């Protein structure tokens, strides 16, 4: 086992890793920017080293200073958390060359999964369902028509150079296809300078359902109960829950096996997440694989009783996975709300400031992961997520009631937060019925406002 772990991150996830290390009896080294002198992660670690000024690219992304910090403190492993260097293959490589264990999968896996088209090909080869579509760009309209007939309408025509909804056309039937391809091509040409387009099956109102997987170096891989992360705003997850209201035990087994297949295909080790789109018919498609611990990992911890960060560290240290798939249970329903220092009434404008009044929710079934405290100054340099509020109940109804009351207890004065926004979500009828998809925020919450 590692003797000392350097945590190349900040905020709640740095604290989360310190907590896991403490419980495992491993010493910790925090690194921090000058702006984070008074951060809890710097205060609570056994050692802490300043690695640069406030901007991330000169501190939390400063590989030479982070590696030097590991060397002068004698750390034998580095935990990257999420974001920052967590999926940086170069960083993983530097760690390896300095004989420091990078807590995550091998750099080859990070590289393969970081490239969307490579990952898609690997999954297709492994037999994991991917969104049906053209192998490359569409040049002839006849090919497009043939493919669309095969994968069935609705389909979507997308500009290869596009993104974020730009240069996209949804086509409901054969009649519209030719026109859509041509419009999309000319739009793409105008907007991006390239007229290449490709074709994909359109998934209307999908859910985002993901599976946490755990793997050891012997090739043992298991999946844990899924997380439903459909509540998103501009592709940013805001609320996550486990299990998903849309997944029954049969579908869970089917999707879980696909996730394990995906992980096995790339010889995955430590912890990772396979993300799927789930449509209304119960069909699901591989989206991407995240090769790190995720923000929303606590909902899985609460329903499975497994400490994922401790597990990640043990697996990175080469321990054998001693959990068996058939022993994994789901105990209750868990929900996480990401509390961001943002003003929900002003288009989620980030809100920096100093925390004045501060009361944390508590009592049964409530967990808070946060790096803030009264008097703490929220820096404009970093991500706006300042706390995660996670609850568990015996059933989904109890979990929602608990989240609602915990949100009501949560007092953070000094900055605007998304707490009132989450209260709206929790009291929404569709949410309570579990009828959500990735369009929920736009359709249900903003329409009311």
């Amino acid at each position, binding site marked *: 086992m590692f003797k000392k772990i350097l945590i190349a991150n900040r905020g709640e996830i740095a604290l989360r890793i310190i907590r896991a290390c403490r419980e495992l009896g491993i010493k910790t080294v925090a690194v921090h920017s000058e702006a984070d002198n008074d951060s809890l992660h710097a205060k609570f670690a056994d050692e*802490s080293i300043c690695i640069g*000024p406030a901007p991330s*690219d000169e501190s939390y992304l400063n590989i030479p200073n982070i590696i030097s910090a590991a060397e002068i403190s004698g750390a034998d492993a580095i935990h990257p958390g999420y974001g920052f260097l967590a999926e940086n293959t170069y960083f993983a490589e530097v760690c390896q060359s300095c004989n420091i264990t990078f807590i995550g999968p091998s750099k080859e896996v990070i590289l393969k999964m970081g490239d969307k088209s490579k990952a898609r090909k690997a999954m297709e080869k492994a037999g994991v369902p991917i969104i049906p579509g053209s192998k490359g760009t569409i040049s002839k309209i006849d090919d497009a028509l043939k493919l669309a007939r095969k994968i069935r309408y609705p389909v979507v025509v997308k500009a290869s150079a596009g993104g974020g909804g730009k240069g996209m056309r949804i086509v409901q039937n054969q009649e519209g296809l030719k026109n859509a391809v041509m419009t999309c091509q000319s739009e793409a040409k105008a907007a991006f300078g390239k007229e290449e387009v490709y074709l994909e099956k359109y998934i209307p109102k999908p859910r985002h359902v993901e599976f946490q997987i755990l793997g050891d170096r012997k090739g043992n891989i298991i999946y844990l109960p899924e997380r439903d992360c459909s509540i998103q705003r501009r592709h940013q997850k805001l609320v996550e829950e486990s299990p998903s209201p849309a997944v029954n035990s049969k579908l869970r087994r089917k999707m879980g096996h696909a996730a394990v297949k995906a992980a096995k295909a790339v010889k995955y080790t430590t912890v990772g997440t396979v993300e799927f789109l789930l449509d209304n018919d119960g069909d699901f498609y591989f989206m991407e694989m995240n090769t790190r611990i995720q923000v929303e990992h606590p909902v899985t911890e609460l329903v499975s009783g497994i400490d994922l960060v401790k597990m990640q560290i043990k697996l990175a240290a080469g321990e054998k996975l001693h959990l068996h798939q058939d022993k994994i249970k789901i105990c209750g329903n868990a929900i996480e709300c990401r509390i961001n220092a943002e003003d929900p009434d002003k288009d989620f404008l980030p809100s920096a400031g100093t925390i004045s009044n501060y009361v944390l929710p508590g009592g049964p079934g409530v967990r808070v992961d946060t790096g803030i405290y009264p008097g703490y100054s929220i820096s404009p340099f970093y991500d706006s997520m300042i706390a995660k509020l996670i609850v568990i109940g015996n059933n989904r109804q109890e979990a929602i009631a608990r989240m609602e009351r915990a949100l009501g207890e949560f007092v953070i004065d000094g900055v605007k937060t998304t707490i009132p926004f989450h209260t709206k979500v929790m009291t929404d009828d569709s949410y309570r019925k579990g009828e959500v998809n990735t369009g929920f925020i736009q359709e249900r919450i903003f329409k009311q406002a």
Partner: protein
Amino acid sequence: MKKKKSKNSSNKKAKELLQIREFVNLIKDADITELLWEKDGTRISFKRGAPNLEEQKESAQEEIEDYAPLPPSPKIEQKSPQQKEETLPFSEKYTTIKSRMVGTFYNSLSEDQPPLVKVKDIIKRGQKICVIEAMKIMREISADKGGRVVKILVENGHPVEYGQDMFLIDPYYQKKEAPETPKKKHK
């Protein structure tokens, strides 16, 4: 998943590699202090945290010879949550040369050589004052300001973090006595 950050970090990858190569090349010129001045001037200047010399030059010019010994900087030791908040009781007359790197501090170019700088030495801006080892590379560090060395705040062979004070400097001394200094007169 934190999409905002993961996008950032993937965009940063190429930049990162470039930065490091650039960095390593520049180290060979042995003037890291100057490099950092040039590169980050607008956002993180050396003025931050140190007294503004331009403004203070007009003020009193007394020499303060005795200086209360500072505790050895124990930043990389086991500590209590609040300890970090304490600041060292520097005299307003003095300033410090801080580390812009994380690594191990050496006072000489190699073990068999004499220290680059001793207490009471007069140093000039740009003069080599110590070596910091990071990622197995020894980097010679130049002074970013001149003056008389009041105290060396890091012990030989000890680690330094970013922003850590290494040398306590009396900047006014330079003004009066710099012409008489016996060291490195040639520019």
